[in-house]
């Protein structure tokens, strides 16, 4: 058990340590029922972060996710009555469309993803504002319960949201580790030139990565919209930075090729624990944000696996 062997597990160690610290300060934190509720609640953020992982994994970033989710809450609310549960397909289609658009602009027009995704996000925001008429919309409770009521049920005490999250995590984990797309992603992330020279269609891989990111942002938007039983052009605001933080803290740095979806699960849980810590440790309201930032710096400094950063740290 050398130090080096432990490195990939640093994020997990950080998570466990934080959990223990919060738990010691307030043993109520360890209550399983409470824990499950906390985890179930972070699900939309987790889903968004999962998608974002793909963009960051290839060395890019996707800043459009929040706006895509905003747009999706509006789309879901508007079309739920008409299409019922089939609105899922519209949602996934629209998410894929916007993600692909980001990817296309990035790869074909050579616009850095930082800017292209931000700009595509603005477009999504416009759509959301237009479709919602700039009002907060809400769903008819019966329609919602008929189509998506099951999402919030429980089986043997386990919220279905959590089950959906686990299924999605397994899905992307399979995608990342077992499928040829995952392999291609890894190649593009860790050695783009070699991937090109091996004849991979690198642009297609990247576009697909952004597409996946868009789809997951859309699913997160859908979950959120159904959960809140409504939608408007600002509903998902505040998602973006926590999602980025979750991916980074989990150990997928922006240099690409390192980390992955399991790391993001860990990162999301870390974000959850830090947030819960504010509540459990009764951190003063005005100090919460500063404390969050400081814990974040410490967590990242401890967590990050520098051996994979290959020398230069930008």
């Amino acid at each position, binding site marked *: 058990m050398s130090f080096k062997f432990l490195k990939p597990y640093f994020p997990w160690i950080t998570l466990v340590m934080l959990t223990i610290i919060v738990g010691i300060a307030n043993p109520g934190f360890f209550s399983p029922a409470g824990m499950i509720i906390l985890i179930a609640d972070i699900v939309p953020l987790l889903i968004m972060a999962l998608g974002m992982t793909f963009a960051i994994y290839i060395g890019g970033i996707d800043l459009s996710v929040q706006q895509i989710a905003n747009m999706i809450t509006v789309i879901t609310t508007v079309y739920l009555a008409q299409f019922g549960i089939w609105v899922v397909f519209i949602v996934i289609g629209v998410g894929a469309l916007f993600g692909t658009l980001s990817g296309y602009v990035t790869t074909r027009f050579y616009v850095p993803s930082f800017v292209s995704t931000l700009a595509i996000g603005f477009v999504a925001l416009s759509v959301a504002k237009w479709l919602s008429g700039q009002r907060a919309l809400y769903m008819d409770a019966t329609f919602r319960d008929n189509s998506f009521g099951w999402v919030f049920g429980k089986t043997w005490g386990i919220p279905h949201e959590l089950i959906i999250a686990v299924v999605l995590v397994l899905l992307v984990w399979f995608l990342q580790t077992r499928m040829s797309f995952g392999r291609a992603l890894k190649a593009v992330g860790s050695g783009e030139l070699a991937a090109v020279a091996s004849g991979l269609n690198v642009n297609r891989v990247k576009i697909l990565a952004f597409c996946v990111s868009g789809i997951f942002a859309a699913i997160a938007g859908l979950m959120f919209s159904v959960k809140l039983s409504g939608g408007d*052009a600002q509903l998902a605001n505040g998602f973006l930075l926590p999602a980025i933080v979750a991916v980074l803290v989990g150990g997928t740095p922006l240099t690409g090729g390192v980390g992955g979806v399991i790391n993001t699960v860990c990162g999301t849980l870390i974000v959850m624990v830090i947030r819960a810590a504010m509540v459990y440790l009764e951190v003063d309201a005005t100090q919460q944000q500063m404390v969050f930032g400081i814990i974040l710096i410490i967590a990242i400094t401890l967590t990050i696996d520098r051996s994979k950063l290959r020398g230069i740290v930008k």
Partner: protein
Amino acid sequence: MSFIKKFIEAETFSRRNFLLASAYGISGAAAMRMFGPSPIMAAEYNDPTIAWSYRNRTNPYWNEIVSGGEAFVESLGKSKGFLTHLINEGSSEKSLADVKALLAKTNGELALAIDTNDAPNARPVVEACVDAGAYVSTLWNKTDDLHPWDFGDHYVSHMSWSDEGPAEQTARILLEAIGGKGGVVHLGGIASNNPAIERLNGLKNALKDYPDVELLDAQPADWDTQKANQVMQGFITRYGDEISGVHCANDTIGYGVLEALRAEGMDVPIVTYDGNPQAVDLVAEGKILATVFTNPHWGGGITASLAYHAAVGHFKPSEEPHEHREFYGPTIFITPDDALEFKANYLENVPTYDWTDFWGPSNGQIMYK
């Protein structure tokens, strides 16, 4: 006539009824214990956690709200720190997650006052609280189909402000000031927020009686000073001297507008909303024509108080009439004439409110259109 005077009179009146009200509260509770349904049905807590969940501390409006919450907690003989703050930073997701975390921490032994950041968010928050056995009172944001009386005792109350009427009043003050002709612009809040919509509607209602005034443009400034500053600059470019009055959805927007006008050396009357101390000063100086005080201090205190007193069983919400479950908060107009008086009475010496007089200053049951 002074709006202030009227309000203070109403206030004094209600103070006179203090004993009566508290007697009702206590005896009501006692009666419930004796004749009410089994106590197991409605969990009552001896010392529930009291929490306020709101957007952020960067807006003075929320500071006022919180000061009310803290004043209420102090009235119980506890220290300010007893009030738990949940700050959602404009994120509905965090708003909900924080509430759930607190529910888990307190096992539902919680009296929560909350503005859910966005209307759709209210339902899951209420549902979570009801499931956990906590008592929740909401402020401002909720969807029209969500009502406290559908949830028994645990969704105690909802308070909002009918902004359409007051906004119409300020609009009339503005339109009179410009002589009933010319052009006005409106800078709104976040477009989908209820108050933003109502305040614009208020202006539109007023305009119906002033056919010679044209609404040149209305754009959202997201409650933000800097954004308002930029939007106003755009308006000035586009409409220039056609602008003879500005209607702002709140004070913070007003500050940005004032500075934009100042940069141009323009002197155009403006009206705002919310009655922040700084805005009141500006009204006193005559830079703002009128603003509307919604008494966030009282709103913040009474929302927490309602949840708390329901939680400890001092009254049983389900036995209250609808107008005690959903009601409008008080509004006070502030014009240059009474700004100083107002300031002395409300800002420099914050009145000590009776936090068990739940509905005294309220403004009637919420009406839906």
